[in-house]
């Protein structure tokens, strides 16, 4: 017969209150485990029952928003995507993602990562600004061309890869796996023409050549993005471009209007919900 007593585990939570604490400290809380309970559920219980001031970031609680990256039992993971039962330990240690400053408790300061991400222009760079601002049609792209970058576009910017990377751990200037993988995501998009511009941003020595394929970023990524692969492919593109072996194609053009297809019966577009201008 199954044991009827509820199982409990200890949540060992890293606390840091800026202005009050000199350094972060561990705090233990007993939590009753319910079936299917995630680490994020456990944190909510801790907050409700014994530590009302405990702070962390979370939103979607389904591995989509990328807010809840934490160091759980020594590994960077999403709190909402990690079952307490799967950890199989009596003590669940939860700390903020390392390699980022601690704002408070489990909240890391992700700004350096996002600043590099922004510097690498993570959007389609091309000359037809008018078309981009006021599109007439979609840019044409084949399914094969889509596969060239689709994997990298699943990134939710959780920062787990940055916390796992040994190069980020010792080199504060290294761009890091997330921003680099996102640069490669756009560099390998057939609709983009920003390869040269992003290469300029990366040329300072803090770019992909700092990476030596420790592969941790890909091992911890909760979305299967495989940033290590993106970074090595980026290096190949950079070398091939230097040797003039990289195919230089103009970015995909606007798709032609379909012809020969009946257009009747398609209702007109609904009125705008956002005022113009």
């Amino acid at each position, binding site marked *: 017969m199954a044991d009827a007593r509820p199982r409990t585990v200890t949540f060992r939570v890293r606390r840091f209150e800026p202005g009050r*604490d000199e350094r972060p400290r561990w705090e233990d809380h007993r939590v009753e485990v319910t079936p299917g309970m995630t680490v994020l559920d456990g944190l909510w219980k801790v907050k409700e029952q014994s530590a009302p001031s405990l702070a962390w970031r979370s939103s979607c609680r389904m591995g989509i928003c990328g807010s809840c990256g934490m160091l759980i039992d020594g590994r960077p993971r999403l709190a909402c995507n990690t079952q307490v039962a799967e950890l199989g330990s009596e003590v669940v240690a939860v700390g903020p993602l390392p390699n980022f400053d601690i704002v408070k408790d489990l909240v890391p300061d992700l700004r350096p990562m996002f600043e590099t991400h922004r510097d690498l222009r993570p959007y389609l760079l091309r000359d037809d600004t008018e078309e981009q601002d006021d599109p007439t049609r979609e840019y044409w792209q084949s399914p094969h061309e889509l596969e060239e970058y689709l994997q990298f576009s699943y990134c939710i910017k959780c920062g787990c890869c940055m916390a796992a990377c040994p190069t980020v*751990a*010792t080199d504060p200037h290294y761009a890091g796996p997330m921003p680099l993988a996102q640069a490669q995501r756009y560099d390998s998009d057939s609709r983009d023409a920003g390869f040269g511009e992003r290469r300029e941003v990366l040329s300072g020595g803090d770019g992909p050549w700092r990476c030596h394929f420790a592969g*941790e970023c890909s*091992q911890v990524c909760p979305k299967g993005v495989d940033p290590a692969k993106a970074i090595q492919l980026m290096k*190949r593109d950079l070398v091939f471009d230097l040797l003039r072996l990289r195919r230089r194609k103009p970015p995909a053009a606007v798709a032609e209007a379909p012809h020969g297809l009946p257009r009747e019966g398609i209702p007109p577009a609904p009125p705008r919900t956002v005022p113009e201008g």
Partner: protein
Amino acid sequence: MASRAHPNRLGIRGWVGGGRWGFERYLYTLHRITGLGLLAYFLMHIFVTSTRVLGPASWKQAMDAVSGPLFAVGEYLVFAAFAFHAVNGVRLALIEHGFLIGPPIEPIYPYATSVGRQRPLAVAVMIVAGVIALWGGLDFLTLR
């Protein structure tokens, strides 16, 4: 606000911990350590052999100083470090140019990664480096 935040960069600890403890992380760390070791040996080597310009006497003195059994072990470690660094370097040169890691794929759980894809190569590298180091070890033993 930034000034009140607490620094939490792992530093050198990040070379051994912080992730999923993948095999490649240890190769990464070992590659760095052997690289630094080889550099240290190289500098020492230059320094010791440069005593020759000071005449045969100082050359002999320098040679005597580095002829103890401790140095023999040290020399062997340099050789083993070289074996690993060289073979692993070939693996890295291939991978860092985008070879042997496969094209982008659809991420379907459980995720397959480029790390897993090149894993057989990483294992082969360790075996080859081990064989070279062993062979060198026998050579060192029979020389003396």
